[in-house]
């Protein structure tokens, strides 16, 4: 696999700034993912163990990221805290892809009243404040990783739908699709062989942005108390917890988890920026 990866990276680098954005974002994301996966082995302390050190002690050589109010080592919590967010994000993107893409393809390809109707619904959902909708759904479904992922997915399905729909509508007009239809190809064939491959790049762009948004929304849901009720280290949870400790000036409890969330979201955002520029190059002088 590595032998395919390196030439791929090289060709990305040749594409100028946009390529570098993708690479850099990809590195950020990969580092976080890998760190989360190997966390049990590299965390200096058990992230959930209390009273490992003096509670609320600032960063020091012993505890580089300080400790929280019950004496847990922040460094270990940072290393291990990405799991929930990544799970929620990945799940929600998968759900979005499984629902949004077929829906978009089907609706735009079918056209007519069905298309108008579905579009109307999608537009309504899209126009609605995302977090609030996610809250409403999470309320109904309950807490937990899967439910949170589903709530977020519902909010973002319209984004995929719209992008795909606009792509399909423009591709539909192209002569080669007309030719295929005239030759009597089945709807399914036309969709999968002609339209889908051309739509994939845009989906990739939407997906990366979706990842970033999902992470931020998950953090937001946790912050208002609708997070996952498990006692695993989670950056979002640390942020919420740290809020109480603000007046005492314990900046390290929120700063490091926050920075991690930013880095992860930023990684995806940069990838998305880079991808979108690679796929639709701006006017170069």
């Amino acid at each position, binding site marked *: 696999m590595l032998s395919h990866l390196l030439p791929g990276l090289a060709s990305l680098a040749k594409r100028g700034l946009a390529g570098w954005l993708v690479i850099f974002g990809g590195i950020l994301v990969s580092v976080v993912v890998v760190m989360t996966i190997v966390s049990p082995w590299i965390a200096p302390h058990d992230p959930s163990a209390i009273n490992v050190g003096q509670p609320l002690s600032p960063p020091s050589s012993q505890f580089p990221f300080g400790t929280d109010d019950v004496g847990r080592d922040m460094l270990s919590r940072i290393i291990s805290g990405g799991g929930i967010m990544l799970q929620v994000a990945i799940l929600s993107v998968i759900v979005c892809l499984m629902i949004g893409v077929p829906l978009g393809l089907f609706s735009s390809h079918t056209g007519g009243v069905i298309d108008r109707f579905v579009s109307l619904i999608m537009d309504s*959902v899209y*126009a609605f*404040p*995302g977090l609030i909708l996610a809250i409403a759904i999470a309320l109904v479904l309950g807490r937990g990783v899967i439910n949170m992922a589903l709530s977020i997915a519902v909010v973002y399905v319209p984004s995929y739908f719209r992008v795909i729909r606009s792509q399909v509508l423009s591709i539909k007009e192209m002569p080669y699709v007309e030719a295929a239809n005239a030759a009597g190809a089945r709807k399914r064939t036309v969709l999968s062989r002609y339209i889908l491959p051309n739509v994939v790049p845009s989906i990739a762009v939407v997906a990366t942005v979706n990842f970033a948004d999902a992470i931020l929304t998950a953090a937001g849901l946790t*912050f*208002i108390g609708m997070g996952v009720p498990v006692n695993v280290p989670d950056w979002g949870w640390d942020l919420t917890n740290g*809020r109480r400790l603000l007046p005492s*000036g314990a900046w390290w409890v929120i700063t490091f988890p926050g920075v991690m969330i*930013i880095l992860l979201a930023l990684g995806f*955002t940069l990838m998305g920026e880079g991808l979108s520029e690679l796929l639709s190059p701006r006017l170069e002088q």
Partner: protein
Amino acid sequence: MTLRTYIISRILLTIPMIFILLTTVFLILRVLPGDPVLLHFEKMENPAAMAAMRAQLGLDKPLWAQYFDYVVGIFRGDLGKSMQDYSPVAQQIFSAFPATLELAICSMIIAVLLGVFLGVESSKAYNKPKDQVIRVFGIVTYAIPVFFLGMILQLIFGVGLHWLPVGGRISPTMEPTGLNIGNLHFSTGLFTIDSLLEGNIYKFVLTLKYLLLPSLTLGLVLCGIFIRLTRSNMLETLRLDFVTAAKARGLKESTVTYSYALRNAFLPVLTMMGLQFAMLLAGAVLTETTFSWPGLGRYLVDRINFRDYTAIQGTVVVFGIFVSIVSLAIDLLYAYLDPRIRL
């Protein structure tokens, strides 16, 4: 199509969208959970209390009747009763609303002013370091969770430097009362305006002090989009012939940038304001929670913690209607302003 046709059709379009919104909220919050009263009591069985609540809230009627009551109620301004004390939800929402409105307006102003200014500067310094820095800034601010930024600002300016208050909307007893002339009493609920109406500069300054951090937080996170939009519009507009022609006539650079290029690039910013409004409200929920700002967002979070489903339903509906109306207003304003549509 003429302006009048457009206005009418746009307004007509809003009505079914609001209906879809109402129905969806009803489906999600009333039908899906099954029995909200049960959820409220968190499965702690207490049949008598639950039956009593159901009766009080009209939740024992058949579903279609509830839906009917619900829709009619909304048009009459009745959003149901709170599960906490059976007081009208509409009233609670109405009293919390102005705080959110004020925060939203201020944040949007900051986001647009900052975004447009930086976007213009960025476009003028095309591909130079200044441009790259500003672009990166715009991308990074979008990736910051709004409540994290809020907390950091609180730490720095509130706890660390003691320059600004950490939370709340105003210190108690300092609430502006608005215009009072004899028997005439008028207040908007927006403290900035009310304090000016009252003629009390001290209260005005105080209001701003409390308003600064929350709206700055929200504004910063949102400005990124405006930076990017303004920059790309300006880059396109600056290339246009009439800009070069204006320069050829020896007009001052500031005139050319603002009077020529920006004027023509501004309308998309307006549209974007409308589109971003939903994001603004979502961010407001988090910001209000962070800063203990007594607005609709904090009210929502409050009600969630209390498992007050009827109140939550009412709040979500209000949010939705608010967004629809703002979006309608922006669309109409845009149609009015674009001279090409008019003629």
